[in-house]
């Protein structure tokens, strides 16, 4: 389960990935921040294309294992209404050693932000809300001649 309407549970991910073969754990967490581009934020609503997002998150996990030779990579993203400070995303990487663990975690969150169909709508203290400018998905190229 890569998308969750409930609070993300880091300890559960750590328990699921516990592995004596690994000496290094790297976690990235994204949290709702009070300020963005000069505006005071009060909350963020996250929505997703759930089928494509789930599949893409699984693909990024598998690609991280292959690219970086790490042992575990787990990605989870929160959906729904998040208050300040709440975790929106978790990346958990376990590997033999720390260089590849750091590299894989960084790559996984960067890639998640580029490829996974999730959208944030920020709500402001001054009133109103905005969908943030995002990253266009690389459209599938035509298979036709």
């Amino acid at each position, binding site marked *: 389960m890569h998308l969750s309407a409930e609070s993300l549970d880091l300890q559960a991910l750590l328990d699921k990935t516990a592995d004596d073969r690994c000496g290094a754990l790297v976690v990235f967490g994204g949290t709702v921040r009070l300020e963005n581009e000069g505006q005071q934020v009060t909350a963020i609503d996250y929505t997703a294309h759930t*089928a494509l997002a*789930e599949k893409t998150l699984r693909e990024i996990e598998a690609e991280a294992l292959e690219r970086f030779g790490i042992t575990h990579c787990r990605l989870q993203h929160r959906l729904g209404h998040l208050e300040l400070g709440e975790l929106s995303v978790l990346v958990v990487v376990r590997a033999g050693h720390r260089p590849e663990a750091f590299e894989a975690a960084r790559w996984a969150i960067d890639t998640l932000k580029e490829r996974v*169909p999730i*959208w944030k709508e920020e709500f402001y203290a001054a009133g109103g809300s905005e*969908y943030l400018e995002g990253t266009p*998905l690389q*459209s*599938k190229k*035509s298979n036709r001649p």
Partner: protein
Amino acid sequence: MATYEIEMYGVLRRLAEAGVVSIEIEASQSTVQALLEELALAHPEVYDRLEQVACAIEDELVARDHSITPDQRLALIPPVSGG
């Protein structure tokens, strides 16, 4: 004529004021591109977003010349901003 349903995500849902919009096109023209062109006519408020939109059917991204049947829903994926 055949009726197609198009799912709107992110900012498109706000602009179109709907999660799903219905479009009618000739069955013989049933490509993703034809649906987008008809959508732009019926919903001009999303027109200038369509260039940056990716298209999906279920959990597959599809190209604009992909053929589509009325039992398939086209999903419009604007630029993503997760994380």
